[in-house]
């Protein structure tokens, strides 16, 4: 600390050059926006793929001329081949889970708002932060190249679903879709793991070390708790996937046998008979599933926890009421995160795993329902007695609660070992996880976008466009995913390129068409959202610094915030994050930075300060 001088207030001058400012920026806000842009591009790709999948399922055998041009291998003459469909399944899942549901909530909004909400000027390690984005970006380029790669032996991208079960994914000769595309898939995921780990390191260190004065842990907004827990989950689960990915890559390219057992006979070749299929022995396919799901289940919570955080935050703000049971909410987040590490086996009830372990996993799985239900009750409790303002952000947050219940509750069916017997790998599962981890998380992000947009760009998004977007999307996703449950009950299997082969699926045709039409409409409505985003950046109504009368630190600074967030004056925090409707206060919200004012009735003073978890004023 020797030789330091007292510097002026504005110490951190923003970089001047375009490249340092917008491309290789060290500013967490720019990096956050970069992540969001990446997710917006990725979700467009993923959505287009789901559109193609629905077209193929509803109108099999149709010629779509443009596809023939884009994918001469996968859709010759514009007609999708089954392997092309499966490749779309794989890419859709991988892109959505990794590059949308993991990047936007955490890398995007987390990066932008975690430092501001805890009163820090930046992340702890800005260079690492920049690296984590660019590493993730490279991962995205690699995964995109996977689908366009048409090698000599393979006409389509990887086939394996986002789970990439070995030995299908480990055997180069197991048919189209196991060529170079699969290697690129593994490489992309490995790169993504590294990027996420860098991010997680940054999030945890920042949160634990860079909170401003007065920002005790229990005064943090619930969003921060969610991002923190997510970072811990990522830190502990991504290394396992990375390790598994290395083993899978070695199995494919170095002739090892971690996931490949002996004596395989694949597409006319016996393992070890000649060079085209080297000898494999002693591996275990189930091992891949254990490693994958050890990562995969926490990954589900990585996707949804930030959405839960944003929802709690936004519900309190627009209900003009403190979050109901702040402390319980924090414990519930932790309980979900912790239990998330002990339930991976529920993906594997019928995999050949010991039936006794299956029973244990089943009971642990259903106990995750408890903290999830606690969160739901607390959201309803937050709305109870509120003065709800129906902004678009609030609509999406309420939509999140509705969809989280709708999607999460069927986990009680799937988590039971016996009920998994008919349900496993049917559309019931597809419906369940799309609603809860896909759509609900995305609703959380929509809510976050409409909510924080004024802070990020100093302008509002169009509320009228936003509301149209909400209504159609909300009704649309119900129409898409609720019928899928009944499809699954009839027995429609996932990952089928066509349903034409089976008599017992024929009765489902009207539902298949309904889902496809609803999906097409819902996807088209998203154009409105993209338009609204871009238009509002330039033409939106100008927003003040605290347009929503909110209480947390991000609303104390300018919109958009200056390079070092608080223009050199770090805020000091005096109270909990959701002090709305405090009796006796001049406004119906009290900022976290507002110092205690000694008023006449001291009795009122004493209680509201530590805030959270109090039972409110009853006397």
């Amino acid at each position, binding site marked *: 600390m*020797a*030789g330091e001088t007292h510097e002026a207030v504005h*110490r951190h001058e923003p970089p001047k050059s375009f490249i340092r400012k917008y491309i290789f920026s060290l500013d967490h806000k720019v990096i956050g926006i970069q992540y969001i842009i990446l997710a917006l591009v990725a979700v467009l790709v993923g959505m287009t793929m789901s559109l193609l999948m629905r077209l193929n399922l509803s109108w099999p055998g149709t010629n779509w001329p443009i596809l023939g041009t884009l994918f001469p291998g996968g859709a010759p003459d514009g007609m999708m081949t089954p392997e092309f469909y499966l490749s779309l399944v794989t890419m859709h899942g991988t892109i959505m889970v990794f590059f949308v549901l993991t990047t936007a909530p955490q890398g995007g909004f987390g990066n932008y708002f975690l430092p501001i909400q805890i009163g820090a000027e930046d992340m702890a390690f800005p260079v690492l932060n920049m690296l984590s984005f660019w590493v993730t970006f490279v991962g995205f380029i690699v995964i995109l190249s996977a689908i366009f790669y048409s090698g000599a032996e393979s006409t389509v991208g990887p086939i394996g679903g986002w789970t990439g079960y070995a030995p299908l994914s480990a055997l180069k000769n197991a048919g189209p879709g196991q060529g170079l595309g699969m290697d690129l898939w593994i490489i992309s995921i490995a790169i993504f793991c590294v990027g996420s780990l860098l991010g997680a390191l940054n999030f945890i*260190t920042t949160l634990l070390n*860079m909170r401003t004065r*007065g920002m005790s842990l229990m005064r943090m907004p619930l969003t921060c708790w969610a991002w923190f827990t997510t970072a811990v989950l990522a830190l502990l689960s991504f290394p396992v996937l990375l390790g598994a990915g290395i083993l899978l890559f070695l199995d494919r390219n170095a002739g090892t046998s971690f996931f490949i057992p002996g004596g395989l006979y694949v597409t006319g070749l016996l393992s070890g008979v000649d060079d085209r299929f080297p000898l494999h022995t*002693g591996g275990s396919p189930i091992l891949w599933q254990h490693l994958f799901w050890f990562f995969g289940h926490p990954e589900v919570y990585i996707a949804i926890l930030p959405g839960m955080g944003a929802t709690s935050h936004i519900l309190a703000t627009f209900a003009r009421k403190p979050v109901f049971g702040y402390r319980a909410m924090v414990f519930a987040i932790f309980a979900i995160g912790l239990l998330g590490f002990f339930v991976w086996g529920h993906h594997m009830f019928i995999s050949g795993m010991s039936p006794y372990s299956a029973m244990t996993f089943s009971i642990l799985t259903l106990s995750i329902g408890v903290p999830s239900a606690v969160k739901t009750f607390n959201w309803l409790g937050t709305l109870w007695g509120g003065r709800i303002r129906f902004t678009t952000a609030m609509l999406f947050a309420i939509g999140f609660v509705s969809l989280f219940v709708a999607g999460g509750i069927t986990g009680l069916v799937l988590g039971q070992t016996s009920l998994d017997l008919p349900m496993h790998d049917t559309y019931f599962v597809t419906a369940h996880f799309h609603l809860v981890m896909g759509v609900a998380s995305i609703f959380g992000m929509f809510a976050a976008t409409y909510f924080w947009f004024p802070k990020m760009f100093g302008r509002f998004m169009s509320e009228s466009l936003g509301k149209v977007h909400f209504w159609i999307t909300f009704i649309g996703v119900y129409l898409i995913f609720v019928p899928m449950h009944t499809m699954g009950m009839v027995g429609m299997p996932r990952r089928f390129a066509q349903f034409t082969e089976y008599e017992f699926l024929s009765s489902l045709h009207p539902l298949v068409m309904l889902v496809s039409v609803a999906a097409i409409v819902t996807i088209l409505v998203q154009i409105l959202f993209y338009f609204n985003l871009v238009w509002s950046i330039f033409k939106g109504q100008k927003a003040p610094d605290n347009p929503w009368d909110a209480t947390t630190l991000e609303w104390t600074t300018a919109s958009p915030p200056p390079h070092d967030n*608080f223009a050199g004056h770090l805020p000091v925090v005096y109270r909990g994050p959701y002090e709305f409707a405090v009796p006796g206060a001049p406004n119906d919200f009290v900022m976290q930075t507002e110092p205690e004012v000694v008023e006449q009735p001291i009795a009122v003073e004493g209680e509201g300060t530590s805030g959270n978890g109090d039972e409110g004023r009853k006397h």
Partner: protein
Amino acid sequence: MATRVGSTRPAKKQGISRGGPKVPGPNGKGPRGNGSRGEEDDGGSRRLSPKAYRLAMWIVLAAVVMMFAALSSVYIILSASNDWQPVSLPRMFFFSTGAILASSWTLHNARSSLKGGRPKRYRQWLAATLVLGLAFVASQLLAWRELVAEGLYLSSNPHSSFFYLFTGIHGVHLLGGIVGLLYLLFRFRKPERWLDPEGLDVSSGAVALYWHAMDVLWIWLFLLLLVWR
């Protein structure tokens, strides 16, 4: 790799701003937000406390441990398979184990010299650590040659795969530690750097933590390969 390099970065030289207005401390009821920051430091600063760097290194190690836990469990599960053919340990492994144990000792001495204010001694011990580290890497490569001489390659059988896998992935991680040692040797070569003893302590502390962890990790892998066959 980048994780490590970044987190061993010394604290920023920018120092602490006292430019902000003096603000009253928070109400006595609420705990202070950030325990690691000095009392006088309320204007805000990007400088992280030494504790933060140590914490960051622990976080890195948590990730590394998770990965090796995963690989170790793969090893333990596959060792129960019928096709498992135990391979005897290359003798070079004993030498490399000795080298890395010794390197932890020299690094410990380096840290003591630093605390005792003997910069020259510190650099000597550091150099010794580096040499031992390189010797470790070299002996791991020689162990590979030993395996190759016996006709055991990466894909020969499940057990032999793990010899290459464990040493390879551990080696890659260890190279990160070697980069850290080189950094310490060169970054603090000039005497004026010693004016920032805290920064030096932070970076050498982080590198030492990482290095010792790699040592412990190797012992674990070594015992796994030796005992669990």
